[in-house]
């Protein structure tokens, strides 16, 4: 087991390095002279030269990249062009909204997705199954930002049940916090759970065709036990994979929903940085997101081992 985990971690390292190289190169070859951006309104050629030398922009590409990696290893994500502040300092207060949103969405969408997927598989071919799957396909096809628009229009503008914007931090009370995030959590959960539901259903149906399910039935196991005890865990691997993948999807979803709902999270930070061409922030956030997703994949890999003893040994 530990060997397996160690092996998975080792496998992720080259991916992280690759991700770093891609991120750095993108920004390096991108337009815009960072020195000019930093110098601002009153840049003379001498000042520009000075800034370039100070920040090491005059060194060769590999050296700069090495330096960037070295700083990254020490938790130094660089300095924002726009606000001239340490990016780590800018990111820290943005973590709570995004993490809280992410946590709620993952939990909720997993519960909704697995429950409906199992219900559909349980009643495969029934009207319930068909209706659930129509909803799932709809959820898959609906753009999140439009769904967000519709929910705001219905629940915030017209019914006034939820705030249109705003984020109430956890410190200000858990209820207010959940209330302020309710719509974005719902929108993202509906979309993510559609995907999870579809996969759960097909994975369950696949497993239900397996011989060992027949064996379980031959032992006199009840349908419920067959379903929960025998079929669920083996089908959990594709489900875990898709939950992992839906977290990657959430990264995208949050960029959109945080913008729409004005939640001061990492997603909106990225959009702001892109509008302002604040490349160090773009670079840092891409890197952070990629590392988080690689971490998620690692967790999913470890879950595989937990779910399936064949992988464990």
């Amino acid at each position, binding site marked *: 087991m530990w060997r397996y985990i160690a092996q998975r971690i080792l496998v992720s390292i080259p991916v992280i390095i690759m991700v770093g190289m891609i991120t750095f190169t993108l920004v390096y070859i991108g337009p815009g002279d960072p020195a000019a951006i930093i110098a601002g309104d009153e840049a003379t050629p001498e000042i520009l030269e000075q800034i370039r030398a100070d920040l090491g922009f005059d060194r060769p590409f590999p050296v700069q990249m090495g330096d960037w990696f070295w700083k990254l290893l020490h938790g130094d994500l660089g300095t924002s062009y726009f606000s001239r502040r340490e990016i780590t300092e800018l990111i820290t207060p943005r973590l709570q909204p995004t993490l809280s949103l992410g946590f709620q969405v993952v939990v909720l969408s997993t519960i909704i997705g697995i429950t409906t997927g199992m219900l559909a598989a349980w009643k495969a071919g029934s009207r319930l199954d068909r209706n659930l799957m129509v909803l799932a396909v709809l959820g898959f096809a609906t753009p999140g930002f439009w769904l967000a628009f519709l929910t705001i229009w219905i629940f915030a503008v017209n019914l006034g049940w939820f705030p249109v914007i705003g984020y109430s931090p956890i410190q200000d009370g858990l209820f207010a916090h959940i209330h302020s995030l309710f719509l974005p959590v719902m929108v993202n959960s509906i979309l993510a759970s559609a995907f999870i539901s579809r996969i759960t259903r097909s994975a369950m149906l696949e497993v239900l065709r397996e011989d060992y399910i*027949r*064996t379980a039935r*031959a*032992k*006199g196991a009840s*349908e419920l036990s067959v379903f929960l005890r025998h079929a669920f865990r083996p089908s959990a691997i594709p489900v875990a994979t898709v939950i992992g993948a839906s977290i990657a999807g959430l990264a995208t979803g949050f960029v959109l929903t945080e913008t729409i709902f004005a939640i001061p999270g990492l997603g909106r930070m990225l959009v702001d940085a892109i509008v302002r061409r604040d490349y160090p922030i773009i670079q840092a956030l891409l890197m952070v997101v990629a590392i988080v997703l690689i971490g998620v994949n690692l967790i999913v890999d470890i879950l595989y081992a937990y779910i399936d*003893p064949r992988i464990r*040994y």
Partner: protein
Amino acid sequence: MTEPLLKVENLQTQFRTEGGLVKAVDDVSFEVQPGETFALVGESGCGKSVTALSIMGLIPNPPGEIVSGKIEFNGVDLLKLSGREMREIRGSKIGMIFQEPMSSLNPVLTIQSQLTEALRIHTDLSKNATNDRAVELVDMVGIADAKTRMKQYPHQLSGGQRQRIMIAMAMSCTPQLLIADEATTALDVTIQAQILDLMKDVTEQSGTALLIITHNLGIVARYANRVAVMYAGQLREVGEAVEMYTEPRHPYTIGLLRSVPRLDSEKGTPLAPIAGEIPDLTNLPSGCAFSPRCGWAVDKCFEESPLLEETSSGKKVACFEHQSVALNVQ
């Protein structure tokens, strides 16, 4: 003869598929006596597994459905039982072993939890008692180091070991009937015999009747008391196992026998595979389903389907020409 343990009467099981209606089991009747070993023989796709699943009540519906007939077990018609009542019989009164030992055990559950499941469902034994019983069972099926096996997973066992576990599982509640559906087909030849011997042993010890489902006539000869030969969903010949070898009465049985290499045949005797292929069950030939492949077929065979009739020797045959076949074979 005593009251039969299992009495299948005019069983008809059908499947609705995209290609049309498949009569997988068509009017099949046979009896299994307590403690006896009964074999159901036929090529793949002839309906023998469906017969077994029909007895177990495990026909997936849809697309499958038992259209008519009776399956009496201890005098009770299983087809009339509720799902709950049927579950009480499955695993406790009737055990079943399947063809694929590789895939018939749940890969994510420990041997112990799978072995004890039937006991937990059907008995009131304590957890410790079921665990002890599981160890006993594993010992019984001849796997060494039973205690450590309990915590292992199926993929850590060999194919033969897994099939032993399957037997242990099926026998855990000491059923009255054990159905072995091609239980040895997927195993190495050397292991096949061990597994069959084991099945025979454990069933004999507990007085359990054994219903062997196989395409392998060699197995039948050695282990079965009585045999039923099945072709295209119908029984073609039913009788004592020994007679089946010495006095086959159906051309299909003969064909099957001839296609099997035998140690007692003279060297150089060529095998004679049955010509042609198994017919499409959705589109059976008119008349006797075997007629297109049959060397004895007469005109009538292409028009009418023969029924299973009792012959003078007490066995049953479904062939218009069984008498001439009998003469020929002698």
